């Protein structure tokens, strides 16, 4: 990465207070522990992890849809930690999100025209006569027919809805989109179509993506770099193919090996035990309770991200294994 990063996040933390245990004391649940990463202009960063890993939380924290704490959070040179609400609102033009559930992400009561117009209205774009051509352009861009504009979401299939969601995100011509499990709910044949669409858009508009998914193959295919999360911590980050084909972290290796595949002969790395409760995380390396390679030392220190290759980092003490 030569250019200055479009998005730079250092030590992102997030915790929820979950009720009270006594009359006064509050308990809190940490879902993100010091996550740091950056996204270059035009880059696709894949974010992989199982449920509870905090990947969606990262996406929403960056978009400031939820509160979070971080040492640095800069987007396009602007400090998101100190930005005024007014500036943030206009900055939203540059950062967008595509959701997982194509059914929940569209207001069932609004026509596609209204959905897309809302995006344009929010930033005063393409007013008056310029509006209709822009709407047509948007639906065409995502491979839909302009005649669909006056229909409501329930008239569309899941794949079509996801395209509408993409069109909404693209309406404001953002430079960065969070794709939060954007293809997970789709059937395989539709998923491929949408992935191709995203790939095309990326080529055409140079938009950066934070691509969140639990599906490693999808992430590998779409991303430049992949970041692997486990219980709110970064386990490994590196170029997509490298992370996928020669993972340096036992967790990544286990994930990849667990993935069902038609062609690869799977030699599954067995994980022991269950995912620990976020309320009672193991000391040291949080993966050690399930790690087949865990040593007593793993319990003592939280392994830092260490460089293990070109742009490739892994948070594992046992660099000797993989």
């Amino acid at each position, binding site marked *: 990465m030569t250019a200055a990063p479009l998005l730079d996040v250092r030590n992102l933390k997030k915790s929820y207070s979950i*009720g*009270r*245990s*006594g*009359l006064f004391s509050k308990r809190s649940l940490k879902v993100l522990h010091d996550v740091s990463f950056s996204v270059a202009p035009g880059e696709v960063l894949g974010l992989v992890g199982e449920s509870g890993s905090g990947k969606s939380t990262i996406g929403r924290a960056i978009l400031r849809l939820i509160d979070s704490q971080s040492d640095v959070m800069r987007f396009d040179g602007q400090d998101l930690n100190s930005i005024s609400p007014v500036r943030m609102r206009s900055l939203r033009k540059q950062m967008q999100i595509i959701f997982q559930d194509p059914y929940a992400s569209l207001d069932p009561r609004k026509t596609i025209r209204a959905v897309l117009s809302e995006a344009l209205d929010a930033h005063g774009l393409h007013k008056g006569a310029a509006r209709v051509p822009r709407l047509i352009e948007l639906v065409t861009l995502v491979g839909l027919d302009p005649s669909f504009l006056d229909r409501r979401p329930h008239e569309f299939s899941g794949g079509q809805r996801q395209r509408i969601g993409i069109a909404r995100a693209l309406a404001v011509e953002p430079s960065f989109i969070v794709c939060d499990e954007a293809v997970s709910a789709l059937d395989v044949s539709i998923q491929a179509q949408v992935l191709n669409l995203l790939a095309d858009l990326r080529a055409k508009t140079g938009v950066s993506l934070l691509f969140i998914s639990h599906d490693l193959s999808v992430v590998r295919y779409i991303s430049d770099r992949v970041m692997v999360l486990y219980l709110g911590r970064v386990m490994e980050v590196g170029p997509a193919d490298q992370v996928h084909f020669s993972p340096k972290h036992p967790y990544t290796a286990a994930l990849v090996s667990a993935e069902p595949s038609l062609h690869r002969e799977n030699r599954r790395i067995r994980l022991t035990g269950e995912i620990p409760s976020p309320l009672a995380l193991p000391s040291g390396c949080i993966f050690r309770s399930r790690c087949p390679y865990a040593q007593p030392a793993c319990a003592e220190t939280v392994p830092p991200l260490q460089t293990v290759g070109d742009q490739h980092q892994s948070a594992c003490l046992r660099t000797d294994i993989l």
Partner: protein
Amino acid sequence: MLAFISRRMAAAVAMLLVIGTIIFSLLIIVPGDPAELLLSTGGGSASAEAIANLRVNMGLDKPVLTQYVTFLYNTARLDFGTSIVDNGSISSVIALRLPRTLEIIIAGTIFALLLAIPAGTAAGLRAGGKFDITASAINALLTSIPGFVLGTLFIFFFAQVLGWLPAGGYVAFATNPMQHLQMLVLPALTVGLHLATIVFRMTRASVLEMRGHDWVRTAVAKGLRRKRVVRRHILYNALGPIITVVGLQLGILLGSTVLVEFIYNWPGLSGLLVSAVEQRDYPTVRAVILTVAAIFIGINLVIDILSSLLDPRIRLQ
């Protein structure tokens, strides 16, 4: 659980304080002078001097702030004081009356539950079927008959035309159990029928909802007998919402038995409040409202505890 209960108790006390204050202030601005009223019951008139003397006897000559502080202080000691009209102990009157109102409500509730839960379950299980359509239609009609209309009609038919039951009134159970129960029938029925319509709706909806859950399919797939599926996996799960609704209704009923008590001349708590308001018996009004509010809050607490006992998801939180 203990922490939860103590927190709720603290909130309840705070709420009762607010409610007490609201009532106190309301009563100050309500027109009408208890002393004058008492001495002009039935259309007579009393001398200004007599009225003034009575006001002193009632303690109404003291400054409002003093009255308020006394009220708070006494209430905090759970001492409701005495009625300014007849100097009777308010606590004992409430202790006498409350069980009667509760009696109607409980008898009505038992009636409602016995009638509405089986009917609602049957209707929910066969939603859209003949029974459901008939029962729902009858239910909708019954819901639409206000309690006072129903009560009026009941008295007309059962007491005046048929002479089966007393038109109203009250005899203590200890004095004459049979007569007591006879007098209980119509008020309880009036309260119960209305509650039954609500419980029926809730049961039906709840059963309908529970019926669609995956675990019901699991239970059927396990090869359980239909009865067991209905009882253990539909009705038992549906109980939570039903209890919540019944509990909420019990609280509301506590106050809205006014019309029923009025129509049947049943000397319950509402009647006490109505006459206390009429007589501007401030301490009694405050005491009754605080009691009702406290019970309402108490019922809510009990419901929450009950629901958590029924549903481990709430308990485990």
